[in-house]
């Protein structure tokens, strides 16, 4: 008879191997980018416009463009997402409509990013005639990150104990007063986490901004929301595939700045979540 403990050892070995096959490459990717990108990072790289057909100079307009886009996306998505989360957690009943809303959120989260790009092009750029602009790009990104914000905010709202609401209602507060003064303040860290995760997601996406805002090369800062803008992820795509003979250092440097921006946001979100869990009063 086979020894079950030997089988177990073999099985566990393979499971560990599978885990290492994911974790080690992730570590390697980050190490490679940091190692090769760090020498490129200096004040000039961060604050100068791209020069010599993007083969020299810095990436300042791309950084600023990304910040504009992300800010625009969150201004659009946070109010809608938060109110949608309040609806799902406080008002919705267990019925067909709620089921449909949840299914729509799942589907919105699953729509391929390039399809968001197509949609943004058809609706904002062509139909509303916003043109390729920060406005079009921000709105497209905003719709894309809506599911992230709704899902995390809803979790945060639902984790506020039911007794809090009951006490407030029994003291004569109305439903909205209860939500506004009791539920929301207690859910803020969770909502913040979701918002920051959404920001990180929007900052890293390329496909949705390809046709809605991204400028191949724009050596100045955008002047209004109807202006095109450069963006970090698109800039990385351009200098790694579209422009020949770009110094490797610049490519790695751009990748590093983008990676750090996104990871920083995720880190902040994780820290907030962790602190919140520790100081939870219930």
């Amino acid at each position, binding site marked *: 008879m086979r020894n*079950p*403990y030997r*089988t*177990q050892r073999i*099985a*566990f070995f393979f*499971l560990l191997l*599978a*885990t290492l096959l*994911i*974790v080690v*490459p*992730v570590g390697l990717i980050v190490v*490679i*980018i940091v190692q090769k990108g760090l020498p490129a990072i200096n004040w000039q790289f961060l604050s100068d416009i791209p020069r010599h057909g993007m083969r020299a100079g810095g990436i300042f307009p791309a950084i600023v463009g990304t910040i504009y886009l992300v800010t625009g996306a969150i201004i659009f998505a946070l109010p*809608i997402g938060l*109110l*949608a989360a*309040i*609806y*799902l957690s406080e*008002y919705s009943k267990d019925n067909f409509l709620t089921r449909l*809303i949840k*299914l*729509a*959120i*799942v*589907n*919105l989260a*699953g*729509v*391929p*990013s*390039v*399809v968001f*790009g*197509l*949609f943004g092009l058809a609706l904002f750029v*062509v139909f509303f005639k916003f043109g390729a602009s920060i406005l079009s790009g921000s709105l497209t990104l905003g*719709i894309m990150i*809506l599911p992230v914000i709704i899902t995390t905010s809803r979790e945060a709202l639902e984790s506020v104990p039911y007794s809090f609401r009951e006490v407030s209602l029994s003291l004569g507060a*109305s439903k*909205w007063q209860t939500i506004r003064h009791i539920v929301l303040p207690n859910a803020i860290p969770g909502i913040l986490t979701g918002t920051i995760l959404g920001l990180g997601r929007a*900052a*890293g*996406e*390329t*496909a949705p901004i*390809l046709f809605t805002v991204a400028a191949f090369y724009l050596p100045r800062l955008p002047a209004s929301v109807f202006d095109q803008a450069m963006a970090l992820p698109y800039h*990385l*795509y351009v200098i*790694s595939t579209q422009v020949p003979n770009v110094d*490797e250092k610049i*490519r790695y440097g751009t*990748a590093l700045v983008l*990676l750090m921006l*996104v*990871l920083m946001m*995720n880190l902040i979100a*994780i820290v907030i979540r962790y602190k919140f869990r520790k100081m939870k009063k219930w």
Partner: protein
Amino acid sequence: MRKFKEIIIEKLILICGLASIFFVALIFIFLLKEGIQVFKSVGLFKFLFGKSWYPISEPPQLGILPLILGSLLVTAGAAAISIPIGVGCAIYIAEIAPLKIKEILKAGIELLAAIPSVVLGFIGMVTLVPLVKTVFHLPTGLTALAGSIMLAFMAMPTIVSIAEDALYSVPKTYKEGALALGATQWQTIWRVMLPAASSGILAAVMLGIGRVIGETMAVMMITGNAAVLPKSILVPVRTLTATIAAEMGEAVVGAEHYFALFAIGIVLFVISFAINVTADLFLHKRE
């Protein structure tokens, strides 16, 4: 007055609650509005199964079979790599790893999920592509295989986190029962935990595959972008997503090419819709 204000606010909340449905419908309507013309002029069957994609020749040939096969090939490769590794990792995290290591591993997986696809594409270009080229003695490393490997990494965070959730939500009593009957830890996992979590794991796999089919930037940078019928996994291919991303910049608004790219968008939307609805059914079956 207060009552009136609250009614307004509650209506606003309801409207925003419906926003997701509204946006999904809006996306579909606008894709359809731009793409439907191609189904009329070319015909749905010829569009889906036409063997040549020459959108700017005269007259344009708009058959997306090479693109569909390109997407399928890359996706199948990515699935073959990411499913065993992803599910294995989920089992390790959920059942075997000590608490401290578990936290570190989960952070690592979250890190992977956070890396932008264009960064992964870039890293794939400078590391994986030359590697594939030398290992298989190919004229170019920009192949379906390289794309599959890179995409497998993008599917793994989805597969691992959802499969781990599924394992975690199996009632503790199942496990305790099996162990009490003298089963080893592995026998418990293999015979009890995995079957109990199977529908959740299936959903995890489907959502991972959905992620792969929709992935755009990395795939465009790595797979070589040749819109021909692929004969093996070691040749350049072009996927549905990459075609849209690469060609929309050149397509003239209102031209047949422009409409055809939207029609590809409809195909992608329908695929992702089908995958997400089915995966959702599996996830709810568990509850």
